[in-house]
């Protein structure tokens, strides 16, 4: 009996020492917070066409990042609470801008994350610049964020149209798909994609025999006129730049018209796992596309995806993973800077080299704030090849970070 008590006592002492030692070791120099807390605002589409690929589950991912950061460094690692707030921008640029303004000014938000829909992202980049507060874009693809509209407080994290084009455009052209017919949604994103793809196809020795804009939003949901035209033009590759619901309609009808049997290969500009869920994997089987990340790419990615699955019941898209990664790296930067002051954090981020389960071989480029990192060329598996639910794609090759990034000289960014 006495011995048991003795052992217990020893355990308690050991545990309390261990606890002290742990927190003592993890806490760095004092962190000074500007308003006694860190507020992360996630602004994205939570009710429209992009709600599934990012939306509420990205908010969940950011919350996971905050929890994991706390369990790594202790609850009080930054000397104050870390809050996550969120708003639905409904893909409207004006609403996005006014939400960002409100969050920065009234809710003391230190950073805005995500923001799919290029026009909304560009309007928030402007607000961030005016307010001198941070914005890390994950969901939008426009290269203008690190080009004509670049500014000191805006970073572009996961992917852009240049990366998509350099991967898919080059790979498919080199594999023998020389003659392209491009169809794109006729708005900022689609036009940007068309330009980027055309440049990569031509520089790889291919040609674009024609390109057509489809109405956006496409109220009829019908792409058969363009698909019949494709049958007429007989290109080797049909390049589809549509996204979300439009893409699903187009691919459904591509299969219906049996263009594959006429040796017209489908290449897709931007593909999310949620698109594959919508149509069933066999509808996309064999399609090649470029993506910054796939949940099943390796064990490190898979470990995180398992945690995400347990929480949300789905496997993450790269937007979900990108939001977690960006939030986590932001908190790390505050810790290193010893402050959440925007200028101090920007200084800490610029030129930073890092890697995590999402970003591989990452460097935050000082000149234009593009986050350089490896991209993947992937191919959709057939249902028969899939080993489990959501096992949609396999990696064909890795595109090294410097190849996947637009050269600084081409970006045309003049930091104010």
């Amino acid at each position, binding site marked *: 009996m006495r011995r048991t008590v003795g052992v217990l006592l020893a355990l308690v002492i050991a545990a309390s020492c261990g606890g002290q030692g742990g927190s003592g070791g993890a806490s760095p120099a004092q962190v000074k917070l500007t308003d006694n807390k860190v507020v992360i605002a996630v602004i994205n589409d939570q*009710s*429209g*066409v992009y*709600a*599934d*690929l990012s939306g509420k589950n990205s908010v969940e991912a950011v919350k996971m990042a905050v929890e994991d950061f706390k369990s790594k460094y202790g609850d009080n690692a930054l000397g104050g609470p870390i809050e996550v707030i969120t708003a639905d921008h409904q893909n409207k640029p004006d609403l996005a801008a006014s939400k960002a303004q409100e969050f920065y000014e009234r809710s003391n938000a230190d950073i805005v994350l995500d923001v799919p829909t290029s026009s909304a992202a560009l309007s928030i980049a402007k607000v961030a610049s005016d307010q001198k507060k941070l914005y890390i874009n994950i969901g939008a693809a426009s290269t203008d964020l690190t080009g004509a509209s670049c500014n000191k407080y805006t970073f572009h994290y996961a992917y852009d149209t240049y990366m998509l084009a350099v991967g898919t455009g080059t790979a498919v052209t080199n594999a023998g798909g020389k003659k392209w017919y491009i169809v794109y949604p*006729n708005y900022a994103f689609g036009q940007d994609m068309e330009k980027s793809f055309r440049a990569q196809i031509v520089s790889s020795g291919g040609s674009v025999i024609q390109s*057509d*804009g*489809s*109405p956006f*939003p*496409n*109220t*009829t*949901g*019908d792409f*058969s*006129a*363009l698909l*019949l*035209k494709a*049958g*007429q033009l007989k290109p080797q590759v049909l390049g589809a730049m549509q996204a*979300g*619901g439009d893409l*699903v*309609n187009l691919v*459904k*009808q591509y299969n*219906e*018209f*049996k263009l594959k*049997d*006429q040796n017209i290969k489908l290449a897709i500009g931007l593909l999310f796992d*949620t*698109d594959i*869920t*919508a*149509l*069933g994997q066999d*509808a996309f089987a064999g399609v090649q596309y470029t993506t910054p990340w796939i949940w099943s790419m390796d064990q490190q990615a898979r470990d995180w995806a398992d945690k995400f699955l347990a929480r949300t019941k789905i496997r993450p898209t790269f937007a979900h993973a990108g939001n977690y990664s960006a939030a986590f790296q932001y908190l790390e930067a505050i810790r290193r800077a010893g402050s959440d002051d925007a200028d101090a954090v920007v200084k800490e981020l610029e030129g930073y080299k890092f890697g995590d389960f999402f970003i591989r071989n990452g460097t935050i480029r000082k000149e234009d704030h593009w986050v350089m990192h490896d991209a993947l060329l992937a191919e959709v598996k057939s249902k028969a090849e899939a080993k489990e639910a959501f096992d949609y794609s396999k990696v064909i090759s890795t595109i090294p970070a410097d190849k996947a990034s637009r050269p600084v000289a081409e970006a045309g960014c003049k930091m104010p």
Partner: protein
Amino acid sequence: MDLGYLALQLFNGLANGSFYALVSLGLAVIFGIMRVVNFAHGAFYMLGAFAAYLLLQELQIGFWPAVLVAPLVVGAFGMIVELLLIRRLIRLDPLYNFLLTFGLTLLIQDAMRLRFGLQGQPYPAPAELAGSISIGDAGYPVYRLFVIGFSILVCLAVWYALERTRIGLVVRAATERPDLTRALGIKVERWITPVFGFGVGLAALAGVLAAPMRNVSPLMGSELIIFTFAVVVIGGMGSIAGAVTAGFLVGVLASVAGVANPALENMVAFALMAVVLLVRPAGLFGSVDAG
């Protein structure tokens, strides 16, 4: 541009027109007998597509039975809506029912969105229609030809039922001169609920037919309904023949315009509507007093 290619585009127009025709036929029948502009018609179309999807997913009931079952189920739901809600507002200004059905649309859409998300659900074409036949030097999906043929048959059947049967006679009489019909001792009210259910069933049927071609998503109806209203206005409010003719006409014109320039495809229905309203305000087949 060769003729075969143009012919294919014409088929496309007819296939799209089939959906417009079926949906606006239902709208016209309902408007005819009740003077209610049913804004929820697009939502019923969407429910038809989802009914087919759910029958396949949950009960392994394929496309062919779904063509019959889904419209019956959704039509029955429509009848309940009529009995519980629409009926109560029918004596008031038509605007009330317009607002009610608009609200219903939002409710149904959001309920489906909560359950299924927005991304859409897969639905395959039936195996026996999955192939394509060659017309000229290009292939054309058999399923689309089936949709065209089937819709024309349904429209003809509806026309026959209205023109050549006793029920049709009563419904037409109640549509054209409700007060006079009542004066002859016919209970017009008795026919309202079944006719509403029938119109809703037609929308659901269009939804089932659309499922293998279109993304089955909660918003598919709201995208179609605006187009359909244009079709009904072009054809003449409440006119059966007008709805069908205008449906196919708009489908074909939109497709042909889309060949010239894809941006025109969405615009042509509304341009046509504006012209028709200027030249024949009651629509192509409408009479002034029916509006």
